[in-house]
C-alpha cells in the first residue's frame, strides 16, 4: 500500500514548484499507472517515494511506514527501477545482483535460485558474468529489474520500466506485475505508453505541472470524455487542464 499526503517539492533557488500538494493512495492488489508529459513531476514523485529526494512538505507512507521518519524500513518494502539504468558499470551483472542481495540480506540458496530464474526469464543469464558496461540499454534495464524484484518486495516502484525492453521481456514483465498485484502487493509505475497503461493498470493518475489532474480507472475517464481513446483523452486533458 502506498499513501501520499499533501506532497510538495520545491527545486533550486528560484523556488520552482515541481510538485504541488499531491494526494494519492494506491491500495494493495492494485497496479497504478502514473502518466504525464515530460517534466510534469512523475520522476520527482518516484524519487520522493524511494527516498532519493528530500521531502519538503507532506508525507509518504509505504505499507504504513513513514518514509520521512523511518526511511530504511520504508525502503525495505520497495523494489525500485530507475528511469535511467546506467548503474555501476564497472561491476559484472552478477556482482551487482549479489550486492543487492546482500543489502536485502537474502541467503545464498534463495538468491541463487531467484537470480538464475529471473535471468532465464529475461534471457540475460549468459551475460551475467560480463561487466555491465558491455550491456545494451535493454539488458541493463533487465538487470535493474531483476535487482528490484528478486527480494520480493511488497511494493514495486517502476519508473518507465518498459523502455528498452524487447517485446517478449515487456510481456513477461507485464505478467509479473499482474501476478504481483494479484498476490496482494502494490505496483506503482510511470509510463508514456498509453496502450500499456490501458491494458495493465487497475487505475491511473495523470500529473501535469506538478499537480494531479485525474485519478481513477480508464473507464471512468472514458465516461467523462465520451468514450475516446486513452491517448486522445490524455492529450486533451494535459492541454485543457
Amino acid at each position: 500500500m502506498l499513501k501520499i499526503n499533501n506532497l510538495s517539492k520545491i527545486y533550486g533557488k528560484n523556488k520552482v514548484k515541481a510538485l504541488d500538494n499531491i494526494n494519492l493512495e494506491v491500495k494493495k492488489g492494485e497496479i497504478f499507472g502514473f502518466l504525464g508529459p515530460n517534466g510534469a513531476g512523475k520522476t520527482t514523485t518516484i524519487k520522493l517515494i524511494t527516498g532519493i529526494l528530500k521531502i519538503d512538505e507532506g508525507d509518504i507512507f509505504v505499507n504504513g511506514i513513514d518514509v520521512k521518519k523511518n526511511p530504511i524500513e520504508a525502503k525495505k518494502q520497495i523494489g525500485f527501477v530507475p528511469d535511467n539504468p546506467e548503474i555501476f558499470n564497472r561491476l559484472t551483472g552478477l556482482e551487482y545482483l549479489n550486492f543487492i542481495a546482500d543489502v536485502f540480506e537474502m541467503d545464498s540458496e534463495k538468491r541463487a535460485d531467484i537470480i538464475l530464474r529471473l535471468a532465464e526469464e529475461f534471457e540475460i543469464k549468459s551475460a551475467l558474468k560480463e561487466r555491465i558496461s558491455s550491456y545494451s540499454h535493454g539488458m541493463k534495464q533487465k538487470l535493474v529489474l531483476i535487482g528490484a524484484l528478486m527480494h520480493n518486495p511488497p511494493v514495486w516502484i517502476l519508473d518507465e520500466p518498459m523502455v528498452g525492453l524487447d517485446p517478449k521481456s515487456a510481456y513477461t514483465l507485464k505478467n509479473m506485475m499482474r501476478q504481483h498485484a494479484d498476490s496482494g502487493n502494490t505496483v506503482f509505475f510511470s509510463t508514456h505508453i498509453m496502450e500499456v497503461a490501458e491494458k495493465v493498470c487497475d487505475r491511473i493518475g495523470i500529473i501535469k505541472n506538478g499537480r494531479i489532474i485525474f485519478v481513477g480507472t480508464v473507464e471512468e475517464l472514458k465516461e467523462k470524455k465520451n468514450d475516446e481513446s486513452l491517448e486522445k483523452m490524455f492529450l486533451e486533458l494535459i492541454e485543457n487542464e
Partner: protein
Amino acid sequence: MNKGLSLAKVYINSSYGISNFVYNLKNNKKDAAKAIALVLLILFSTTGLFGMYLYFNIKMYDFLKQVQQQGMVITMAVIFASILTVMFGIITVIANYFFNQEGDVVLALPLSKKDLLLAKFINTYIVEAIVTFVIMAIGVGVYGVKSKEGLIFYLVSIIATIFIPLIPLAICYFIIIPFMNYGNFAKKKDMFMIIGGLFGIGIGVLYQYFISTLVNINATPELLVNKLTNKNGLIDVVGRAYYPSIWVSNGVINYNKVSGLLYLVSFVLLSLLVVYVLILTTSNLYYKSIIGSNEVTKKNREIRTSELKVIFKKNGLIKALFNREFKLMNREPVYFLNGPLVIVFLPVIFGIMFFTNNKAMEGINTLLINMQNVKLIFIYSIIAIIMLGSTASIAPTSISREGNGIYVLKSLPISPMDIIKAKFLHAALFGALGAVITCIATIYFKMSFGYIVLAFIVGNLWLFASYLVGILIELKWPKLNWDNPQKPMKQNVNVIVSLFITFAFAALVYFIGTKISGTISVILLIAVPVILFIVLYLFLKKYINILYSTL
C-alpha cells in the same frame, strides 16, 4: 572545414565547460567563483614547479649573458615546451580517443573524416597550448625583462607560441592513429589507459630526475649551461632532431631583423603544412579507428552448477559495500591511476630520486651519524605516511565518484553511516598500504622496530582524521554530474581542499615533533588526531542524515 571548426567549438565547450562558466558568471555567481577558485588552486599548486623553472631561467640568462649567448634561454623554452607537448600530447590524444564526447551522435552526422580529425586535433591543441604558453611565458619573460625588450618582442613571441605546439602534437597523432588501428587497441581501453598512465608517471620520474640533476649542479651555473648546451647536450640533440625549434627561437630573438621574420614565417608555414599533411593523410585511418571502437565482444560465459556456492556467497552489509567500492574504483583506470597506484609509485619515484641524487644521500648519512636525529626521521616518516595516504584521494572523491549511481544507492535500505564506513575503510586500506611501504623504507634509516610501529600507528591516526575531513567535504559539496570519470577525480576541488588540510596536519605533526620535546610530543602526536577524529565523527554522526538526504 567550417563544419570541423563548429564541431571543435562544441568539443571545447564540452571539455572545458566554457559556456557553462559564462552562464554561471551571469546567473550563478557562486558556481562561477568555484570554477575560478579551482583554476587558481591548480595554478597555485604548480607554482613550486614553475617557480623552480623560472629560477633556473634567470640563472641561465645571467651566465649566458657573459658569453653573449642569452638567446639560448628562448631556445631552451621552445625545446622544453615542444618536449612537454609530445609527452602530454600522447596522453591527451589517448584520453581523447577513449573519452569520446562525440559518441554515436557525431559519427552519425554527415561530417567528413577530415572534419572529425580536425575538430579532435583542435580540442587537444587547447591543453598543449596552455602548457606551451606557461613554459614560453617564463623563458620569454626572463629574456624580455632582462634584455629590456619592447612590446613587439612580446607580440612576436605570442604569435610564435601559438604555433609551437602544432608540430609536436601532429607527431603524437602520427604515432597514435596507426597504433589504434593495427593493434586493435581502440577496443582495449582499460589496458591502454593504464599504459598511458604509466607513461605519464614515467614522465614524472624523468622530470624529477632532470630537476634533481639541475639542483645538483645548481652551485655552478656554467656546469648547468654546459650540460644543456655542449655537444650532445639537450639543446644540441633536440636542436638537431627537431630543427624547427631553432627556427622559432631565431625568429623570436631576431624579431627586428629580416632574417628573424623569415625564420618565423618559415616556422609558421611549416607548422601549418604539417597539420595539413596530418589531416590529409591520416583522417581515413583515424575514422577507421574510431568506427566500432565501442563494439563489445560477448563471451557468454555460462554459470556452472559447481560455481553456485562461490558465486552466490552471502556477505555482511559493510563487506558488500566495501567490495563494491573497491571494485568500482580499481577497475576504472582513471581512478586507479590517480588513486591507489600512486601509493605504490610515489615511493618508487622518490626512491629513484633519492638514489640518483648523491647530495640527498650524503645528507641522510650525516643525519644518521647523529643518533639523536632518530626522532626527526620518526617525524618525517609520520609525515610521509600522511602525505602518501592522502595522495590516493580516495576519501575526498568518495561521493563524487558515485555520479548518478548515488541515486540507486540512496533508494536502497542502507543507512548513510554504513555507506560512509565502507568508504572510510577503503581509504584506510590504501593508507595502511602506503604506511607499510613507508615503514619498510624507514628500515634503511636504521629506525628501531618500536619507532616504526609507532610511526605506523601515529601516521594512520592522522590519516583517519583526514579521511573524515575528505568525506565531510564530499558530502557537503559533491560533484555528481559528470560525463567522464576524469571530472570527479582530477577536476574536483574537494581533492585540492582536502590535500591542503592534510598538509596542515603534516605541518602540525612537524611542529609537535620538533618544537615540543620528550614524551609530551609523542602523547600529543597520538592525542591530537584521536581528538580530531572523535570531534569529526560526532559532527558527521549528527549531520549525516541531512547531508545525505540533500545529495
